[in-house]
């Protein structure tokens, strides 16, 4: 900051002879602050108006103090334990009581301070000089010279080998932390995004030739009898063995919508996916990935009469009867379709299995996706 002296700073003796106010004004002048206008709010001390203003400010602080006491009382005394409805819902008073007294305390403290400044402190109009012009030419020249000579002293311009080596070392110093951080955090995506837990697994499911059973969130197996026409269920691969730490029901890639169509609803299948439903001819049951192909929300607002499926996040709409083709909104790709198979269980009932994994990556698009 450029130091500028305004006039002559008064001597100590001069200051001793001044009143405090004069000394203050003199100090302000030294700092380039000119008090243009300064006036007591109440030029005559002890007037009724002044006392009234003082009392009002004091009242603010008193209310703030009382509110603080109220806060402590409320904090200790008001019940806050949550109860089911049917019992007194008195906990609903806790937050308003505690927060309200807190707010009251803060508000009146703040208002008191502001009123103090507005009503009781002197009114003043002060002008301060700015010094935001660029530095003086002399200053610039001297600093420039200092920098240049310093650079010359290092000799870096002449010693090109040194320059190159130090640049190289600097580059290394800058890169190493970055490599360290990114390198330790990095994970190879591999093919993880290309398959889900519906992948055939002969080790876990030898009886079904590796086909993964389809279950509800409570691990009950899904049977065709479970769904009535117009029915919808969120189903999962029945794999309890965790993959990446999450089992079939909790894995982020596995949620699937199983839909039973209404009588008369006919699916227009995509090429090569005509037999993914069940029965293979004129399917009544079809299953799609619940994960929206746009941004990965569970697209599950299903209108059973029209066969429309809506995603609640960005309102992409899919037509289930055209194999979940996007018909409105920002989504660009159909929801992947799960090939269904039905096998007879030990109890004689029919149960759904996934004949294979989805034939395309589920969820939002990414660069490596073909």
């Amino acid at each position, binding site marked *: 900051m450029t130091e500028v002296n305004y006039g002559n700073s008064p001597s100590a003796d001069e200051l001793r002879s001044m009143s405090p106010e004069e000394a203050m004004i003199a100090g302000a002048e030294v700092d380039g602050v000119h008090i243009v206008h300064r006036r007591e709010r109440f030029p005559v001390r002890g007037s*009724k108006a002044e006392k009234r203003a003082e009392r009002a400010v004091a009242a603010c602080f008193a209310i703030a103090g009382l509110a603080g006491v109220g806060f402590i009382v409320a904090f200790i005394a008001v019940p*806050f334990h949550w109860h089911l409805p049917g019992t007194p819902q008195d906990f609903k008073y806790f937050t308003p009581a505690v*927060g309200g007294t807190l707010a009251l305390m803060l508000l009146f403290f703040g208002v008191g301070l502001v009123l103090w400044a507005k009503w009781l402190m002197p009114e003043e109009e002060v002008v301060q000089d700015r010094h935001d012009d660029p530095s003086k030419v002399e200053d610039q020249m001297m600093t420039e010279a200092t920098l240049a000579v310093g650079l010359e002293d290092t000799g870096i311009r002449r010693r090109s080998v040194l320059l190159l080596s130090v640049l190289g070392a600097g580059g290394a110093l800058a890169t190493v932390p970055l490599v360290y951080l990114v390198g330790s955090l*990095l994970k190879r995506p591999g093919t993880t995004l290309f398959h889900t837990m519906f992948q055939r697994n002969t080790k876990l499911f030898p009886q079904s030739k590796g086909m993964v059973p389809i279950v509800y969130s409570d691990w009950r197996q899904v049977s065709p009898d479970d769904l009535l026409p117009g029915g919808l269920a969120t189903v999962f691969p029945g794999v309890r063995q965790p993959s990446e730490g999450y089992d079939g029901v909790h894995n982020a890639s596995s949620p699937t919508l199983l839909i039973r169509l209404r009588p008369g609803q006919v699916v227009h299948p995509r090429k090569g996916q005509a037999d993914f439903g069940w029965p293979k001819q004129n399917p009544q049951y079809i299953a799609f990935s*619940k994960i929206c192909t746009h941004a990965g929300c569970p697209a599950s607002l299903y209108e059973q009469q029209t066969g429309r499926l809506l995603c609640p996040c960005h309102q992409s709409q899919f037509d289930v009867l055209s194999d979940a083709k996007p018909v409105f909104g920002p989504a660009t790709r159909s929801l992947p379709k799960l090939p269904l198979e039905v096998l007879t269980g030990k109890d004689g009932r029919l149960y759904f299995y996934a004949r294979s994994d989805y034939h395309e990556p589920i969820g939002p698009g990414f660069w490596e996706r073909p």
Partner: protein
Amino acid sequence: MTTTSPVTNPPRRTQPRTPAGKMGKFVDDRLNVAGPLRKQLNKVFPDHWSFMMGEIALYSFIVLLLTGTFLTFFFDPSQTEVVYNGRYVPMQGIEMSRAYASTLDISFDVRGGLVIRQIHHWAALMFVAAMMIHMFRVFFTGAFRKPREFNWLIGLGLLALGIVEGFAGYSLPDDLLSGTGLRIADAIMLSIPVVGTWVSFLVFGGTFPGHIFLDRLYIAHVLLIPGIILALISAHLALVVRQKHSQFPGNGRTEHQVSGERVYPIYAAKAGGFFFIVFAALAALGAFAQINPIWLFGPYQPSQVSSGSQPDWYMMFLDGSTRLFPSWEIRLWGHTLPPLFWPTVVLPGILGAMAALYPFIEARMTRDYQHHNLLQRPRDVPVRTSLGLMAITFYVVLFLSGGNDIIAHVFDISLNAMTWGGRIALLILPPIAYAATYRICLGLQRHDREVLEHGIETGIIKVLPTGEYIEVHQPLGPTDDHGHGLLEYSGTPVPKRMNQLGVMSPVKLIRGFFYPVTEKPELQAAIDEADAAETSQRQHQLTE
């Protein structure tokens, strides 16, 4: 200095006697601060109300630090699954992450925890909102111009970081709403060309949601980002102190000084009081308005979702842009460029870049490379004002589209119609806003000139002897022979109504409301004398 020279005592002030004086001397003997301290105490701040918007943001941030520290005593960001066994019956026995369970504990088992959580969340919304209106003030008054471009950039950085910090904050409780938001964030990362999947796997430590992400996000939320914000705020304020505050033009105000009140004691009392008022407003919101009731949302499960899922308001414009963007996907050479990339990565990038470059673009277009410490009235710079309104309109359409499903539901409008309405509005409303604002600015300018030239309408109608009716105008200053005002427009507000000519203080009215303020006779005489003296002094100044 040689040893032989006579020892002269430097002029020394008498030893202080009061405790405060002793303390002052004790400090000054060690730190030598008397000069610099006085300089800071005497620093002048202009007191226009619009200069306090940035203070709201600063104080909200302080409230965030205070309440956030309290919350760290109870919050556990771990994603480990636990079975909830706390006091909130509708979640008992449900599997959830420790992050969600500890947030429930803060809300139901920690006495007063919910109030602090709510104040913290409201303060976060206020922090970003205050930064935004502060930015509007700086933009529309031209306060970003030379020499303050650096602070404009720092402010933009603060706004961006504030948004990121807020997103990190509401993602931490691991509830259904925040999990949905994080999954979209993952999809946004995946949409980046070439490196997208690598970025996503780096951030989540594997496929979404992984096991480590919330711990990382927590450190970012409580240490990394607040640290950077704090540093940037310091730089922002240091530059304000260094460059001094800009001010509106007015009588006697020039580019070379700043006028107002000194920091000590008036400005400090007002600003300190205002901190408590901001805190009080946030506490009142936390007390009376329930925010982010995560116990209603449930723990995050990738298979679950709720209709009406929105992010907090400052992210809503991105949600809106994503909803409005058409289904355009680029597939080339076995690669996919998803539609999500444009509205969530490219659009905010462009908006940010435009805002960052604006001061330099404006300087170049207007060839104005001067120092500016005096502000402009928005009407006096119609192009800038109109551009600003255009940008705000664009933003508001996106913002409203972020909640278009709620709007559709409440007002019984078709959702598809809302989407199309948003798309069309996004294209046609901003230019309309530009044109309308431009005309309004010009109109206001002309009216200012008209009043300066012809005076204020008094409402007094006169009938001339010819039978003509005219309204009497009160000139604002000296007039020429034709009765036209001689005052030049100087960038300050022009009074437009008669009662703006005198000063009417509501406080004075209230004070004498119940009974007239009467003083004792001798005091009243002294007051009258002081008033008379001041009036004559004022008139003396004016005539000079």
